[in-house]
């Protein structure tokens, strides 16, 4: 019997195989969005638990990875909606990035603050498209929307960000500061 069929029937061994196979992908996707390893691990566990709960809805011929990624993205979105803008994304990295000299600390913090004020949906689309440079079709699939809608969200995010940065006194040429 197929692995997904066995999983849909509630076989815990089949689920364990799926978890071991896909946990890395799910975690990798979530951590790109939330940018915090501990939170990403918690959300990965939550994603896998939700997948198990909804096992009867999984079609044996369906795409497990795509469904898992969609659930993971929704959970990450919920997390971003819940958290205050000052949290996690503003956390300082353990070591300064090698390109630190390109951007002053203060400027970087202002950009992070402005980014965290974006609506969660725009933030996710912009993070995945602009920071992580993920393919638009994969982002659209994970968000359960079209490529056009993702491009629109990224465009809106950039426009809002530009306005906010201008307001903060970071005009054109911000990347060179």
């Amino acid at each position, binding site marked *: 019997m197929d692995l997904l069929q066995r999983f849909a029937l509630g076989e815990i061994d089949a689920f364990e195989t799926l*978890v*071991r196979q896909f*946990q890395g992908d799910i975690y*990798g996707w979530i951590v*790109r969005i939330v940018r915090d*390893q501990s939170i990403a691990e918690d959300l990965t566990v939550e994603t896998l638990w939700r997948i*198990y709960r909804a096992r009867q809805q999984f079609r044996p011929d369906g795409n497990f990875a795509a469904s898992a990624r969609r659930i993971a993205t929704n959970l990450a979105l919920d997390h971003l909606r819940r958290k205050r803008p000052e949290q996690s994304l503003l956390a300082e990295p353990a070591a300064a990035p090698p390109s630190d000299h390109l951007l002053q600390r203060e400027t970087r913090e202002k950009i992070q603050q402005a980014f965290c004020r974006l609506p969660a949906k725009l933030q996710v689309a912009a993070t995945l498209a*602009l*920071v992580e440079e993920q393919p638009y079709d994969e982002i659209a699939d994970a968000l359960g929307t079209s490529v056009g809608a993702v491009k629109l969200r990224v465009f809106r995010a*950039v426009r809002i960000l530009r306005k906010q940065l201008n307001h903060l006194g970071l005009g054109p040429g911000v990347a060179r500061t």
Partner: protein
Amino acid sequence: MTEHDDRQIREALKQSFPPVDTELRRDLWPAVLRKLDVHPARVPWYDWALIGLSTSVFVFFPQLILVFAYHL
């Protein structure tokens, strides 16, 4: 907004958010298993209500047990 501005924003974002390590460092299966144990299948409230109602009926009208048994 020009394409040049757009490119500057992208660059600024990439520099502001350092790359994250996307590799999972530990197996999450034990945590998933724990979560499955923490949330066993719960009996919904209406099932408990039905059980309570049935018990009350059988206590106050024991003759209905025979009617119930007949319909089983």
